[in-house]
């Protein structure tokens, strides 16, 4: 499978505070970021749940990442740290599944950091592009011809 022309599908979970504001800032400042990122809002990244992450992969995501407030600056005090711990656990689970934990990442940024948001989207897009499509999607494609 060649990387050329592969547009990864990426799901980004973000809190409605810094995470979503950073996305907003990127938009307002017209900082371009890859369009293949599906944004899903969480009340707080403390709500990050392995169930949601796995569901995204089941529905065909090639990569997933979570955007949270900077550590120490969570609107729910330590929600982002809890989210981080769950992301770490889910990475292990993805390794065990055979999808690879590197398809999942977490980023911390404040609401004003539009550039950081765009960078994260770019970084994940590039990482997943080099990893190739999720084997799940390949299987689904195989099955559906």
């Amino acid at each position: 499978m060649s990387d050329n022309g592969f547009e990864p599908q990426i799901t980004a979970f973000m809190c409605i505070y810094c995470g979503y504001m950073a996305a907003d800032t990127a938009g307002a400042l017209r900082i371009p970021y890859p369009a293949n990122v599906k944004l899903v809002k969480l009340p707080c990244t403390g709500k990050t749940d392995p169930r949601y992450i796995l569901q995204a992969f089941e529905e065909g995501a090639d990569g997933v990442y979570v955007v949270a407030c900077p550590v120490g600056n969570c609107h729910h005090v330590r929600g982002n740290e809890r989210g981080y711990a769950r992301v770490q656990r889910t990475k292990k689970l993805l390794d065990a599944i055979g999808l690879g934990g590197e398809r999942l990442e977490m980023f911390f940024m404040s609401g004003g950091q539009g550039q950081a948001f765009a960078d994260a989207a770019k970084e994940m897009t590039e990482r997943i592009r080099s990893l190739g499509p999720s084997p799940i999607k390949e299987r689904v494609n195989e099955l559906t011809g």
Partner: protein
Amino acid sequence: MIIGEQKPLEEIKELIGDARKVLVAGCGTCVAVCSAGGEREAQILASALRLAFQVDGNSREVTEATVQRQCEWEYIDPLAEQVAESDVVVSLACGIGVQTLVERFPEAWIVPGLNTTFLGMPQEQGIWVERCQACGQCILGVTAGICPIARCSKQLLNGPCGGSHDGKCEVNPDIECAWHLIYERLRKLGKLELMLRFQPAKDWSVSRDGGPRRIVREDLRVLPET
């Protein structure tokens, strides 16, 4: 409560073997509270299995269902149909739940998804600790409410061994020396004389060593034993 820990995915896959239709059965009581086998964990495991089988190029049908308690007939009866339709049931209940399913559904192939680990409590969010070994003859009344059977690495009954150091057990600095705790608590409560008492050899016949145990409460029985 009963504390368990999920088996590694690889082991669960091995237990599933070639089965095509997999039912992951969660339990909503102890193992849900310790985040090992409740509804959430059942959903996660089902999802993980579906993904893993797809990655292997060998998709299976993996569904999941959680009941309030897997260790009582009434609660598991509603699973009958789903169990009957499955080639294998991965139970995320403790070993008791697994066996309750086995007894209720003798035709079904049922495997454990958890390692049932101990009887304990959450010490803090994310940390569970052992507190009781169900020894059948509780001695907490003379040990200041701290169990040396479950919490002393050598199950000593007459005070701390020579390895007790700074309140920690010789086995591992993460383990509090149960006898140090007992000593301190008795001292603070002015009851150290309890520790001076010689504790005779324990009657292990009422513990697991006496064979599988059973309690019969005639006052509660509906049908007399035949």
